């Protein structure tokens, strides 16, 4: 990409020899078509170009970031970083620059979809709900990422992704669904619409049930939320450093049916094949038959804990966030959804969680609610829709040894409280889940 080549040449020209330097450039085109009350009401398209320059000398480090237009003169930009470096304190956590052997070349031109293309997917979704009220979005992203450092690394990669996410509402209910993939053409707008419409239709006129411990079958989005919390607060090595992670490597913390892998090398994975440092990412076992195998590391966390870097640095999140996996899969089990329901004596099916927040990171006790499709299951059959419930439940205990009855056999990309396209999961059947409040509080 010419913008990158020109920028890199200019930075190199203006950079003093003795300084360690890392230059990152992200060029993105993102678009999102939003619908509400069964019509498109907002339609947005954005082109951005962001640059991060990190320099290190005499044990001091500084990072400055601008978008392309804010860099009027590359020499001034580099000089600003040098001045900032002089004012910086000692950086004890500096962990160096990856070398040339980590370089990766994956840039490719990706054709943009049009607003009309997105509108077609929206239309497919909405028509499945007929007279119901539809809301949601269809989005597309094309990202090109370039990294160079003074240690000889030069990497680039391109990625594309697309998502449809929506709900149908009636006067007394709602149902939602989500699909994600690398291209807009891969999205099943009709299937997502059908799924959401059926949930909304079936969950009309819900009944209130008493709070308490229930057996649960969790839909894809609900499972995804549990796992993303464990990623951010547990498997993120930064949490371990801060003494807040509940994860203990090598200990049987989860049910043996739980195996979690990060799969950036898989063909169907969404996102870059390199991390923010420009190093090629590798597939990684996170939990193997219930036993945690690895944290998600960045250069700094690996250095601080004396562990091996797993290349999970994120672009634009700052040095103090740590790392998380962005291609995480919960490995499938062997149960169909129907089989899982038929195994439930008395429990609840929950399609999606809502507004989950951690009460204490080290115990992973989280509170949140259900929404967009919940049903009472009795003697192996869905018997009636249920209303709003509040849970207060440790997510570690939810997946603990003996609490996972079965794992579904079909996975898909699922939305979560921290974003989309980073988790592909099946449904789960759990023995106990703690609901602490109902509709009346």
């Amino acid at each position: 990409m010419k913008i990158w080549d020109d920028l890199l040449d200019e930075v190199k020209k203006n950079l003093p020899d003795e300084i360690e330097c890392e230059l990152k450039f992200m060029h993105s085109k993102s678009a999102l078509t939003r619908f509400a009350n069964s019509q498109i009401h907002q339609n947005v398209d954005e082109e951005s170009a962001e640059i991060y320059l990190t320099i290190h000398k005499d044990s001091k480090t500084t990072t400055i970031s601008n978008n392309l237009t804010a860099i009027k003169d590359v020499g001034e930009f580099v000089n600003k970083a040098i001045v900032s470096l002089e004012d910086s304190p000692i950086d004890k956590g500096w962990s160096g620059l990856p070398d040339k052997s980590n370089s990766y070349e994956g840039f490719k031109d990706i054709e943009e979809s049009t607003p009309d293309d997105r509108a077609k997917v929206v239309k497919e979704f909405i028509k499945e709900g007929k007279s119901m009220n539809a809301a949601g979005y269809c989005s597309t992203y094309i990202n090109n990422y370039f990294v160079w450092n003074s240690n000889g690394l030069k990497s680039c990669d391109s990625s594309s992704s697309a998502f449809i996410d929506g709900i149908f509402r009636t006067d007394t209910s709602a149902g939602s669904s989500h699909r994600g993939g690398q291209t807009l053409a891969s999205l099943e707008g009709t299937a997502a619409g059908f799924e959401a419409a059926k949930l909304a239709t079936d969950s009309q006129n819900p009944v209130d049930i008493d709070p308490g411990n229930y057996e649960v079958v969790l839909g894809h989005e609900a499972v995804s939320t549990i796992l993303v919390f464990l990623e951010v607060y547990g498997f993120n090595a930064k949490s371990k450093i801060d003494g807040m992670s509940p994860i203990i490597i090598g200990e049987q913390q989860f049910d043996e049916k739980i195996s979690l892998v990060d799969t950036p090398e898989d063909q169907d994975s969404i996102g870059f094949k390199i991390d923010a440092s420009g190093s090629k990412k590798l597939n990684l076992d996170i939990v193997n038959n219930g036993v945690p195998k690895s944290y998600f590391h960045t250069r700094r966390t690996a250095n601080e804990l004396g562990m091996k870097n797993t290349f999970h640095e994120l672009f634009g999140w700052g040095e103090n966030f740590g790392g998380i996996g962005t291609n995480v899969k919960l490995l499938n089990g062997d149960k169909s959804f129907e089989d899982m329901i038929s195994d439930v004596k008395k429990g609840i099916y929950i399609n999606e969680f809502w507004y989950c927040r951690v009460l204490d990171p080290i115990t992973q006790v989280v509170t949140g609610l259900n929404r967009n499709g919940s049903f009472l299951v009795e003697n192996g059959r869905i018997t009636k829709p249920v209303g709003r419930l509040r849970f207060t439940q440790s997510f570690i205990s939810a997946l603990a040894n003996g609490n996972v009855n079965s794992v579904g056999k079909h996975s898909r990309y699922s939305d979560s409280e921290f974003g989309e396209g980073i988790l592909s999961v099946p449904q789960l059947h759990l023995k106990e889940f703690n609901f602490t409040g109902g509709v009346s509080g």
Partner: protein
Amino acid sequence: MFEFLELAIDSAVNSGAKYSDARILISKSRNIAAKNGEVENYNESEKIGIGIRALVGSSWGFYSTYDLSKSSLTNAGIKAFQIAKASAMVSGDDLPFADVPVVEDSYTTPHDENPFSVSSTDQVDLLLRATEQMKKLGSSRASGRLDFWDTEKWFASSQGHKIYQNIIESGGGISSLAVGDGETQIRSYPQSFGEYRTGGWEVIKGFEFEKHTERLSEESQRLLVAPQCPEGTMDLILEGSQLALQIHESVGHAIELDRILGWEAAYAGTSHLELKKLNKHKYGSELMNIVADATLPGALATFKYDDEGTPAQRVDIVKEGIWTGVLSGRDSAAVAGVKPGGMVRADGFGRLPMVRMTNVGLLPGTSSLDEIIQSTENGVYMETNRSWSIDDLRLNFQFGCEVGWLVKNGKIIDMVKNPTYTGITPLFWGNMDMLAGEEEWVFWGTPNCGKGQPSQVGHTGHPASPARFKETRVGVRG
């Protein structure tokens, strides 16, 4: 800059848009994070770009780019129109758009010292000293952060608006984390995630971090051995910053007109409020007087015009417990038949402006925290938010705080840990029976309000003083 804006707007209107407006922003930020006496993150950033929106039929089209060349600006206007036009495949009735006075004006946040003119070394040192001191006093993790934003914004519309604003925001905070046997406890100052205001470096100097390090470190460690917050129904006294978040979640979001109209249904949710109940619905007790006021000097959501060119204003939201107002923009107000409230803002040039809370605050009462405690027989006083969760109608909520203090017979008798409370919005507000006065009224700021798709982070203000809520369920645990 106004010529650039006019080029893009003319292009959108000439393409067929019935209305268009655009903003060019120069956004500077400085973010500093420290831990245990060392810098954890330091970043300075500057972004420049344009966002243009065009109204065609029932939909907005929005395009943003960093490229401010003439050809790019012309193209931006055309693209905004084309994007809006593509919505015709799934369209509805034409979207109405309320008129507001067409003005040419400028505004700069009043401030003493621009934070970007202050030496970054001084700013870093402030955090290093505070976190080092807390670490020495036994904190497992002593953290601090400072954030500064300097945003120059040029706004123009096809109706003739030309508005320049320079908004300066400063904020930050410190916290002490104590790690015990299978648990963590934290104390933060001025509030969790920091306190933010419009203004300069003087905002930070006013916090006087050094006077609070010892207390934070001591309290976080003491919490590890404190008894659990009791479970049950009793009187709840909320410190101001926690009440600010209670207002944000159970009032601020519920009164957003775009939510009430269903425009945010898929993501942020809707509201338990229905427009037909405006001026009738009982939101809370007679002590409850909520206003949305974007003109409060120094509060975080203070400006002169919103991102649609509507003047900042003060709107009554709840008067003596009755719901009387909403947060609105020019389109949502026209749909609902109310006056536009000047409450539409965007997170940078790359985002479509949307309804955002301004300074949605609870007007002070006549009591004081001391009086409230003295008149409480059996209750818990909770300080500083630790967790928050509320349903998508903004009815069923559960909050956790960093510390609780057991109150018996008018006195604080013990510290309790893991305090939580839960409730249903109108019942909870209906139980507010004591409210502290102006002396304890603080313009709390929330710099991290998420809403919209693509997601946007909003800066909102919530003036509040401590208050008491009778018969509240506390001590919910997993």
